[in-house]
């Protein structure tokens, strides 16, 4: 299988449930189990929430594009925005033992994806690349 699915939403939190549903459906089509699907759904939701909060600073009128693809044995999800540049090295998330509001989103993203990176070639806005190695799978 070498299929791609692209979803374009407005940067409003009301559309995050749609992203979660599409993520879960895509994972189901890929044959992933419920536990991994739940983790991926949360991670993609958090990545899109970060775009709204940080790249767009709460502006709900902008655009977010989420692309899902299976290439070989990898699930690749890219999240594109046209907001302020993100710097992963400055986004460390809080120490999990330091209980306070906020700072968890990146932990939820990193705990399930094997690769979390920003495309350095993207001139305007951000393209976040999330890769999950799926191991051996039955091909369609």
């Amino acid at each position, binding site marked *: 299988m070498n299929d791609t699915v692209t979803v374009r939403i407005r940067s*409003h*939190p009301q559309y*995050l*449930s749609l992203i979660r549903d599409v993520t879960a459906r895509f994972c189901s089509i890929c044959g992933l189990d419920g536990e991994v699907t739940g983790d991926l759904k*949360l991670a993609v*939701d958090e990545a899109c*929430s970060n775009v709204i909060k940080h790249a767009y600073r709460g502006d709900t009128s902008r655009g977010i594009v989420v692309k899902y693809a299976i290439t070989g044995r990898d699930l690749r999800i890219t999240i594109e925005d046209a907001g302020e540049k993100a710097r992963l090295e400055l986004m460390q998330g809080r120490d*999990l033992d330091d209980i306070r509001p906020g700072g968890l989103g990146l*932990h939820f993203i990193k705990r399930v994806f094997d690769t979390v990176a920003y495309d350095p070639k993207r001139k305007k806005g951000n393209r976040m690349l999330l890769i999950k190695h799926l191991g051996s799978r039955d091909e369609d």
Partner: protein
Amino acid sequence: MKIDVGDYKGNKVVSLAGEIDMHSSPVLREKLLVLIKDRPQKLVVNFRDVSYIDSSGIATFVEGLKHMKTYNGRLQFSEIPQGIMEIFSFSKLDKVFEIYGTLDEAVNR
């Protein structure tokens, strides 16, 4: 998300249903902070029908707990579904919140 506030055995109980995310958590936050303003000694949140929570939902409860701690109030959670509990455990929130299997266990403590 649905939020019901009621009384059970003399305690305020917030029963939640559905998904707690960046869209719904501001509503929950407002509701919780209004309840906490009355400085209840104990506030129970029942998660039985919650199907999803993200970091904004967790932040809401951490904020509520911090407010309640200022006057030694207790924020208790009950009936947390397994999937939600795993997120709480990963976030180490199971170490800071009072978590009970049933609503009765929460109100009786």
